[in-house]
């Protein structure tokens, strides 16, 4: 099967406008006769559900949390990009487009990214109109800050809680539609299968997590906005419940899975503290605006710090290695995430790590505090040479900007980051890969759409900071609501889809059997036991740096672990009622398949690009070595029963507007 990305023809700047002008629409009276299921209520799913309901469709929205407001988009901290050029620093739609393609290491689709850049400005207008309290300057206008991988300030933010504010905006739009009865909300429901009728997505099987009932829900189209699969690593910045089940189930029903190996390891997370750790906490990338990253210059100092004989504040400027500023003078601490993460790993592998396990570097705010303090002293006409005063004023500014993050850090680590540098280390954060979609955001299953992090489309091999929120909302507010109409236009006479069709009966039976199997398995180990093992394999062999040997081992190990899991997992309780272990078992079962495909994809991609770093393919000074000749394509995998049997389909990436060059942030 050849992949048709359905990218419209014409100059890139006009593609989206022309396309919108010519696609089919469904008239308002007919929208009432069409049902759409949206799975997931984060920025993408929530905004899509609200917008589709506004348009007049009957929406059924599903989330496994107890409220749509709790989707993990809520945890995004730093900000959202938009090419508004409010700062007058030369930003434009093209620059945002260019930065995103380059940031993604030239592995994203030009047309999708340009569309994203085009609608980015609308998102800000929309959110402000909804009452999202974005940060403002004293003049009353919106403030921007800069983020990694760009040379302009285009990031809108709400302190360190931008994702929360944007999600609550989408949630409020949903609330309005729920109140009007246009969205029927199914909280604490998990989608466990997709139902195809005559080759089209026509419904889902979902489990009510409170009662345990298995329910059939029909619709004319199914939209998956269930997020990424970072939890395949067990430890990640994702929420505990974040899972790939919806995305994986549609993959098993025929949706191709693209670029699973593109995973973002975020450079600024709180390091692991022990075996009991259940998740990792992100410290916003925005901290790199003001924080300087360093390790000791000498191995002796690093060792002394690890053993507690020295404190970071004991080291003079000369004894510190600000390695990002040293290696990448033009971007410094604001290099893209993949570059910053690898650089941290490189230093720690070389023995310069600064916590007990040697897996941490410093993020230091001392000079920012002094810089801000001096400015404040100057503004207030106070003595700029009074060190105590300057420090006090500087701390106040830093607190205003990052207070909640600093507090979060202190609660977890029990150290005061105003006094001593933070310790950070990279952690799994975001998955650029996901279900393959065409320009309409439709998967290879007709009528099944995938939006936000759960699709693969816009970030290539590496996502720039503050772009995930942009993409989620762009897909949900401004792209899908148009493109889905084109698909649904012929469906206006179809009428309600019956849930008594044999396809529903069959799908429900399969789900029930899988659940029963877990309940009756009577194994020895808990679900977490297997999940942790999977995570360790993934982190050690499919993590920040990969090689052919490790990946080959990982594939075998994961396959073996999967067998062991099915033979030996223990799920207490019953099918009836609230059973969190059963929920986890279903999710981990899917991770155990996805993880293998992930490794297989990483093994096949014989190049280094973005978040995918193969040790065999690097330049002499340790930078990623891309192979545009052979790998400038999207790897879309077709399910064939076992991950090892998955069939590769290639969608060539054509670059007409951006010249492929070696990505340099030096």
């Amino acid at each position, binding site marked *: 099967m050849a992949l048709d990305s359905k990218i419209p023809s014409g100059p890139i700047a006009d593609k989206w406008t022309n396309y919108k002008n010519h696609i089919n629409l469904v008239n308002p009276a007919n929208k009432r006769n069409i049902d759409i299921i949206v799975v997931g209520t984060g920025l993408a799913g929530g905004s899509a559900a609200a*917008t589709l309901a506004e348009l007049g469709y009957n929406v059924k929205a599903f989330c496994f*949390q*107890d*409220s749509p*407001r*709790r989707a*993990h988009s*809520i*945890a995004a901290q730093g900000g959202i990009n938009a090419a*508004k050029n409010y700062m007058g620093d030369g930003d434009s739609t093209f620059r945002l487009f260019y930065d995103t393609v380059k940031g993604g290491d030239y592995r994203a689709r030009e047309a999708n990214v340009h569309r994203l850049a085009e*609608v980015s400005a*609308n998102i*800000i*207008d*929309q959110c*402000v*109109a*909804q*009452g999202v*309290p*974005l*940060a403002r300057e*004293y*003049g*009353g206008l*919106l403030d921007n800050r800069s983020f990694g991988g760009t040379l302009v300030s285009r990031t809108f933010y709400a*302190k360190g*809680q931008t994702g929360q504010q944007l999600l609550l905006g989408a*949630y*409020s739009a949903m*609330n*309005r539609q*729920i*109140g009007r009865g246009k969205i029927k909300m199914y*909280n604490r429901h998990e989608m466990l299968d997709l139902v195809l009728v005559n080759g089209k997505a026509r419904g889902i099987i979902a489990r009510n997590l*409170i009662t345990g009932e298995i329910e059939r829900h029909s619709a004319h189209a199914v939209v998956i906005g269930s997020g990424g699969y970072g939890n395949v690593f067990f430890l990640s910045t994702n*929420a*505990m*419940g974040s899972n790939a089940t919806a995305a994986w189930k549609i993959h098993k029903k025929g949706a191709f899975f693209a670029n699973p190996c593109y995973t973002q390891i975020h450079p600024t997370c709180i390091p692991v503290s*022990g075996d*009991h750790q*259940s*998740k990792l*906490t992100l410290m916003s990338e925005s901290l790199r605006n003001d924080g300087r990253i360093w390790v000791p210059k000498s191995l002796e100092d690093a060792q002394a710090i690890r053993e507690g004989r020295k404190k970071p504040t004991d080291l003079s400027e000369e004894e510190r290695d600000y390695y990002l500023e040293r290696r990448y003078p033009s971007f410094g601490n604001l290099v893209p995430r993949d570059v910053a993460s690898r650089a941290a790993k490189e230093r720690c592998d070389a023995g310069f790590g600064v916590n007990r396990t040697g897996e941490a570097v410093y993020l230091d705010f001392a000079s920012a505090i002094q810089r801000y303090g001096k400015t404040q002293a100057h503004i207030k006409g106070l003595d700029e040479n009074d060190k105590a005063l300057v420090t006090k004023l500087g701390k106040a500014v830093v607190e205003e900007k990052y207070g909640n993050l600093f*507090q*979060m850090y202190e*609660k*977890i680590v*029990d150290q005061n980051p105003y006094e001593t540098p933070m310790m950070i280390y990279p952690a799994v954060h975001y998955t650029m890969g996901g279900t393959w979609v065409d320009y309409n955001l439709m998967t290879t299953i007709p009528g099944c759409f995938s939006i936000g992090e759960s699709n693969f489309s816009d970030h290539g091999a590496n996502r720039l900071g503050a772009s995930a929120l942009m993409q989620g909302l762009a897909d949900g*507010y*401004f792209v899908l*609501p148009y493109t889905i109409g084109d698909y649904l236009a012929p469906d206006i006479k179809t009428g309600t889809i019956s849930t008594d069709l044999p396809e529903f009966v069959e799908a429900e039976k399969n789900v029930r059997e899988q659940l029963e199997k877990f309940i009756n398995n009577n194994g020895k180990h*808990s679900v977490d*036991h297997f999940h942790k093992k999977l995570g360790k394999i993934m982190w050690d062999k499919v993590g920040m740096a990969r090689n052919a040997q490790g990946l080959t081992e990982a594939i075998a190990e994961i396959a073996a672990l999967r067998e062991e899991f099915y033979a030996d997992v223990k799920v*207490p*309780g019953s099918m009836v*009622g*609230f059973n*969190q*272990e059963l929920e986890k078992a279903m999710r981990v079962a899917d991770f155990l398949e996805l993880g293998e495909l992930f490794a297989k994809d990483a093994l096949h991609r014989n190049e280094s690009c973005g978040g995918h770093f193969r040790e065999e393919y690097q330049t002499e000074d340790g930078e990623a070595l891309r192979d545009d000749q052979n790998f400038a394509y999207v790897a879309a995998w077709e399910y064939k029963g076992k991950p090892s049997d998955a069939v590769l389909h290639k969608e060539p990436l054509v670059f007409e507007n951006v010249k492929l060059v070696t990505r340099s942030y030096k």
Partner: protein
Amino acid sequence: MKLTLKIWRQKNAADKGQIVDYPIDGVSPDMSFLEMLDVLNEQLINRGEDPVAFDHDCREGICGMCSLFINGEAHGPDRGVTTCQLHMRMFKDGDTIFIEPFRAKAFPVIKDLVVDRSSFDRIQHAGGFISINTSGRTIDANTIPIPKHDADRAFDAATCIGCGACVASCKNSSAMLFVSAKVSQFALLPQGKVEATDRVLNMVNQMDAEGFGNCTNTGACEVECPKGISLENIARMNREYLSASIK
């Protein structure tokens, strides 16, 4: 650390429920409270017992999913944190810790420590929004300057995570802090003023219909709120409601 946990166990909504004692050993002070419960659950599963059900998701204090009434306080004895951010270093070796669900008529127990907070959602359905459609053709975001002070206060109100600690801490199970945070966010912004009258009336009516108690200004909610939502918001809602009522 060695601890005795006194945990509320309740099979389902219809079950009566009771406190059950669980001794636990080998707790590290660096663990979060929920990680400590993970350890307990792992032990329970291995012993063939039913693990303790509790709500949690992001484990970084922002999703508002985790709850728990720990030693008589919502989200435990620490201030400005959710249960997932509470660390065991707040407790001493040998401590006895009571762990109960958030209790209110409007928060019925689903199982063990898991409660149903959909009443909060229904209050938001009643008016927690600004009625504009998604068009991308609203006015430019910078058309209306908003004083930074107002924007910041609206943001402070908007940081509510909807966890329900205010209700759980309030001796009256009142939801005023939660409702007032949303009312305040919109009342402070020009965008929200248009629908201010109906919003506050509808949301308060729904709040009352859900069976929450009344506010008697004890201030417990503000103290226990993990996000430090201020009582000023309740006063603002009182003003908004009063002026809406006499319109």
